[in-house]
């Protein structure tokens, strides 16, 4: 009798605990259904629309996000460099390459919750395309680190996980047809001072 009660309890704990934990885990993970990955960058073009999958819908309402609309822009997030290593705030990186067509774009360094890194200095950990110096072939090289660097410099500091968020505004790539053949810049680690 007691054995049966115990077995029922085991089944219930596995069901409720496992079910709830797996939902929490999938909502916590940055990767998800409906993601489009281009190189090191990931975007969720459907997030916040009524076409979104149940996971995106749950994430939207749980985090209280108001996602960008198609006519506004599309955000890409990178959590690893192009070699597959996780991004770290104590390392220096270069972001190099071609940026797709958009009216303008912004790039910022973020922490785990995708809030911009606080630099405690007047210079924010964010850049936008109007202030970028370009190479003759229209590509741009952005140096990321906590020491001033020539050219385009994205200031980061502190330690821990690092995310890059690259958002294109008023861009034709936000309509899903153009997403397959665009290229995004490479993220290369240039050194660490651990």
């Amino acid at each position: 009798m007691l054995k049966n009660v115990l077995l029922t309890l085991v089944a219930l704990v596995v069901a409720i605990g496992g079910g709830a934990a797996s939902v929490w885990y999938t909502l916590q993970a940055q990767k998800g259904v409906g993601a489009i990955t281009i190189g090191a960058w990931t975007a969720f073009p459907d997030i916040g629309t009524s076409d979104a999958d149940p996971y995106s819908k749950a994430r939207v309402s749980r985090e209280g996000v108001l996602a960008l609309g198609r006519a506004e822009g599309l955000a890409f997030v990178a959590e690893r460099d192009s070699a597959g290593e996780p991004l770290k705030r104590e390392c220096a990186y270069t972001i190099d390459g071609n940026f797709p067509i958009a009216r303008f774009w912004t790039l910022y360094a973020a922490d785990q919750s995708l809030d911009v890194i606080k630099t405690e200095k007047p210079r924010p950990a964010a850049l936008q395309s109007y202030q970028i110096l370009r190479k003759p072939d229209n590509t741009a090289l952005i140096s990321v680190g906590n020491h001033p660097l020539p050219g385009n410099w994205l200031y980061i500091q502190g330690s821990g996980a690092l995310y890059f968020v690259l958002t294109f505004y008023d861009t034709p790539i936000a309509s899903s047809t153009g997403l397959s053949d665009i290229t995004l810049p490479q993220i290369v680690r240039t050194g660490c001072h651990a």
Partner: protein
Amino acid sequence: MRKLIYAVLLGLVGAGIVHIAVLLMVPEFSERDAWSRLAQASDLYKVTRLDAEAGGPPVVKSVDPLFFAAACRFDLAEGMVQIKSPDAVPFWSVSIYDRSGHNIYSFNDHSATNGPLDAVALTPAQMLEVRKQLPEDLEGSVFVETPIDEGIIVVRSFVPDESWKPTVSRFLDQSSCTLREF
């Protein structure tokens, strides 16, 4: 032993069912969604800044640090809603969300008649009424027909650098979100 394995297997099947049930219930029962957070911060038809610049922690996470944003909640069952701002800024965009935070429609300053922000959200039935006799002050407005009742309008505006902050703040603070009857 066999019974234990059976119980765990049963539990795993149950976990799958619970997973789906919880997932589908999260949007229904969330008290942390954008609408609920805005409702705690301000009333219907009141423009609320979403960025931290206005003081205090942001009500709803405004994602981009180079953007300022403001939102107002509306209920089309009471009448159509007009959002308007007199100023000009380098870039603005407007999104309309339904009650559960899904983006229904978005447009930016390239869609506007002359540049200034002036938009009206209304239901298809209200649109029919407005078409019969267009009020003079709505002639330059962008009309957005949506089949929803409650919703959120969000205005986002680009802050290219520090010097633009006062201008963009003024643009958002002076924008009005008004219930229009006709």
